């Protein structure tokens, strides 16, 4: 099954054949965390760096400081081990360059926040497609733990090769 992870959402799966996808990431971050040994994968679609004491009523996972721990804890609950987790970051672009109204670099701040929260939990970031001014789609294949990225008008590129599944 293909699950679309919208803004502020988070999805975790251990079902082989499942695909987690975040379409058209701009300044948001698609954070994929996989434990390929356990066959568990999760994807968070993070909108802003920190809640700053304002946890949103409905979607706390839009904030990196809520989403990152929730994603990792959720994976552990599904049988993943923190020592085998690997992280991939996609997004954090500045779609309108410096010309954007109220040009806050949300994309850059999102990426920095997610990197530091992942590092605090000693999970290696094994691949990134972050920054610049292009939109991106991230796809996570749960069975092999492979992660791909696609830019507008471009082909799908592997960021994390899927694990060979023993026959």
């Amino acid at each position, binding site marked *: 099954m293909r699950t679309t992870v*919208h*803004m*502020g*959402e988070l999805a975790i799966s251990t079902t082989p054949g499942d695909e987690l996808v975040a*379409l*058209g*990431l*701009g*300044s*948001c971050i698609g954070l994929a965390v996989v434990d390929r040994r356990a066959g568990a994968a999760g994807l968070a679609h993070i*909108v*802003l760096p920190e809640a*700053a004491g*304002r946890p*949103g*009523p*409905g*979607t706390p996972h*839009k904030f990196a400081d809520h989403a990152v721990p929730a994603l990792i804890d959720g994976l552990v609950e599904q049988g993943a081990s923190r020592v085998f987790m690997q992280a991939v970051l996609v997004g954090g*672009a*500045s*779609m*309108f*360059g410096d*010309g*954007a*109204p*109220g040009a*806050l670099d*949300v*994309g850059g701040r999102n990426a920095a926040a997610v990197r530091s929260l992942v590092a605090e939990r000693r999970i290696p970031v094994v691949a990134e497609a972050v920054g610049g*001014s*292009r*939109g*991106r*789609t991230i796809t996570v294949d749960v069975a092999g733990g492979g992660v791909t990225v696609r830019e*507008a*008008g471009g082909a799908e590129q592997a960021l994390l090769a899927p694990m060979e599944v023993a026959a």
Partner: protein
Amino acid sequence: VSLHYTDLQLDALRELANIGSGKASTALSVLLGRAVDISVPSARALSFADAVDATGDPEAEVTGIVLGTVGELEGTVLLLVSPADAEAICAILGVEPGSGYAPSALAEVGNIVGSSYINALAEMTGMAIEPTPPATATDMLGAIVESVLCAHADASDVALMLDSQLRVEGEDCSIAFMLVPTRDGVDDLLGRLGLA
């Protein structure tokens, strides 16, 4: 389905959008020298999770032109043009589509159309609102819309989108038009209308 807004409030906002897009269509008509029709605007309050999908296929390529609003109403005006429609607009303006001038021509269209919308809004509400200079991007629809929503995401989980279509007669070409005010901005707008 409204989240936190009453039907009466959404109707009033829709009427504001209607008058604003009327002014915007006149400005576009003068610029292009063609008649321009407007659709009946919609006022939708959507969760972030639904807001991007509501505008279309997140991976579709589109040109987005954004203008910020500053002053008593903070928000973003976003114009969305498909690649084919961007070409048609450039052709009407005598600009080679795909040339270096195309993005500036589209930014100027966005500037004129967006500013007249914002000015109409300012007149109707008596609020001091100024547009900021336009910026453009041609990329995935989702990435463009999401980046606009992000700018307003910290205070609220609801995106209020006032949108309408401007259609150039005889050209089968249209511009989608959207105002995304901040949460405070919506409350201020409703306050001015006596509906807060």
